[in-house]
């Protein structure tokens, strides 16, 4: 299928590559279909392009690139919402927000995304029992001058 995207212009999307987020993303509950796109231009970041609204694209990162031991736990209701067996291996991505000064970019570790490419499913978790922040810097604070 062809999308007319803001970021990439016309974009051909393989139906098999579409990931369904049954609950959407928080604040974007109506957006339930996404594609995860690798792009050498922005590696190690990746694009999470909405299929339902081609104007909307997020940037995500594999948290292990920056936060080695970050491993979110899924609760029973997360698996239920995903509708996949609990043994399924999942890819983890966190949303990255880039403000005007890119050195100040942050990752949302409290609300990570888990994705099963095998089942074409995804979900944004809310790690209520954790101390993870909504805005975690990716780069160290600049040293004081």
């Amino acid at each position: 299928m062809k999308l007319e995207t803001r970021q990439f212009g016309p974009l051909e999307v393989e139906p098999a590559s579409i990931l369904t987020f049954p609950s959407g993303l928080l604040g974007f509950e109506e957006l339930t279909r996404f594609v995860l796109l690798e792009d050498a231009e922005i590696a190690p970041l990746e694009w999470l392009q909405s299929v339902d609204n081609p104007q909307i694209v997020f940037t995500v990162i594999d948290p292990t690139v920056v936060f080695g031991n970050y491993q979110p736990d899924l609760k029973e209701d997360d698996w239920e919402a995903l509708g996949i067996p609990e043994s399924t291996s999942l890819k983890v991505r966190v949303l990255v927000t880039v403000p005007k000064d890119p050195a100040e970019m942050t990752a949302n570790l409290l609300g990570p995304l888990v994705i099963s490419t095998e089942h074409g499913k995804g979900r944004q978790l809310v790690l209520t029992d954790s101390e993870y922040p909504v805005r975690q810097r990716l780069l160290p604070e600049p040293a004081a001058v």
Partner: protein
Amino acid sequence: MLVLNRKPNQSIMIGEDIEVVILEVKGDNVKIGLKAPRNVPVFRQELLAELKAENQRAASQASPEAAAQLLKQAFPKPQA
């Protein structure tokens, strides 16, 4: 909105298996206990609002190419 008056140690049932217990009232703080099945997510409202706002912020950001460059420098891929 349904409004109910409760005293400490009294509770409210929501359906058959969700119980909200008022544990303690101290000044402008109310300590609340929640008994709910494990598959019912319970959040502080501000937390959910914060995550929604952060997603909104993430969706309306500048182009990430410069950010990617900084990440490449800070976290170079291990050489094979």
